């Protein structure tokens, strides 16, 4: 059990660190664009001071760009805030669809850098389970990383949540090169530790080129108790 706890903690910290790097990078980009646009307004006013008529349409267009970037930065900070709040309670009643949307948002930059297109397919009905949302985010993140490595030339992964028995199921599809993965190389120690905490199960389906993460409605009582003390 100690090994599981250490692996879970380590994996959680790694996700937290990666998220901070990605979010700070994204925020910096938004700030850099705002700064360039504000600088451009200054440039235009300097030119106007020399007698060139002020182009008000141009100024309005730059203001719109700045507002867009403020909206972008605000959305990035909201995502970080939601992520941090996932640690509020060890056990929470969640809609898996919302969790997938959050993970997709958190991983947007890293997914984009890898050249992969990620699609989150949203079901009409809620897929609610009681689980440890932070640990589940970690597990989804690890599965997504694995999925992105086996997309082949298509470079596209879809994730979807659906009701499964009394709990839920997350499907990662588009795993074109799943058949080439050496036996025993996935799931690794990390995924196994997280699935143990969530009482979850990971299966792969080579024929349908998908990975399935099966989640019960509830988590190991012992772990929840240990983690909260």
């Amino acid at each position: 059990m100690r090994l599981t706890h250490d692996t879970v903690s380590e994996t959680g910290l790694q996700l937290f660190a990666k998220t901070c790097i990605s979010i700070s990078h994204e925020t910096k980009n938004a700030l850099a664009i705002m700064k360039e646009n504000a600088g451009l307004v200054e440039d235009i006013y300097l030119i106007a001071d020399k007698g060139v008529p002020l182009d008000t349409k141009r100024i309005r267009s730059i203001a719109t760009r700045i507002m867009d970037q403020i909206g972008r930065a605000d959305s990035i900070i909201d995502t970080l805030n939601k992520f941090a709040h996932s640690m509020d309670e060890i056990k929470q009643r969640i809609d898996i669809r919302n969790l997938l949307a959050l993970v997709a948002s958190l991983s947007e930059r890293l997914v984009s850098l890898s050249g992969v297109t990620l699609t989150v397919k949203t079901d009409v009905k809620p897929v609610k389970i009681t689980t440890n949302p932070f640990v589940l985010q970690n597990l989804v993140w690890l599965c997504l990383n694995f999925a992105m490595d086996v997309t082949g030339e298509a470079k596209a992964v879809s994730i979807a949540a659906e009701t499964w028995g009394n709990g839920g199921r997350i499907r990662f599809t588009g795993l074109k090169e799943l058949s080439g993965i050496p036996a025993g190389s996935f799931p690794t120690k990390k995924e196994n530790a997280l699935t143990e905490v969530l009482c979850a199960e990971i299966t792969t389906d080579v024929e349908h080129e998908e990975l399935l993460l099966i989640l019960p409605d509830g988590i190991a009582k012992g772990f929840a108790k240990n983690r909260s003390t």
Partner: protein
Amino acid sequence: MKVLLVDDEEQMVSTLAERLSLRGFEVSWAITGLDALAKVEIDTFNVAVLDMKMPLMSGLELKNKLQAKCPAMKFIFLTGHGSKADFKSAALDIGKEYYLIKPLNIDVLVQKLREVIAI
């Protein structure tokens, strides 16, 4: 002086291009490494200003490809704070280069552009 700007943030690179144009530089821009490589097939540039982290092809990978096509081209790298250490490590393999941290100071960029051309 002809400058090629490459950054996957289109609003960043297009605005920066406009500001440099207002300062007398002849500027072209691209949002991917492949776009940039296509530009050097049809035009000649004195300096390339490259974002370090871009999808599919990093700034350092692009620099190596551009240098193979245009040996006289000079380079300036743009980085967020998070990738400064990565740059320093990678720069050991490629020799001394200039890098600037975002958000940029346009006056510093202009100064660096003039410095690299003077080398």
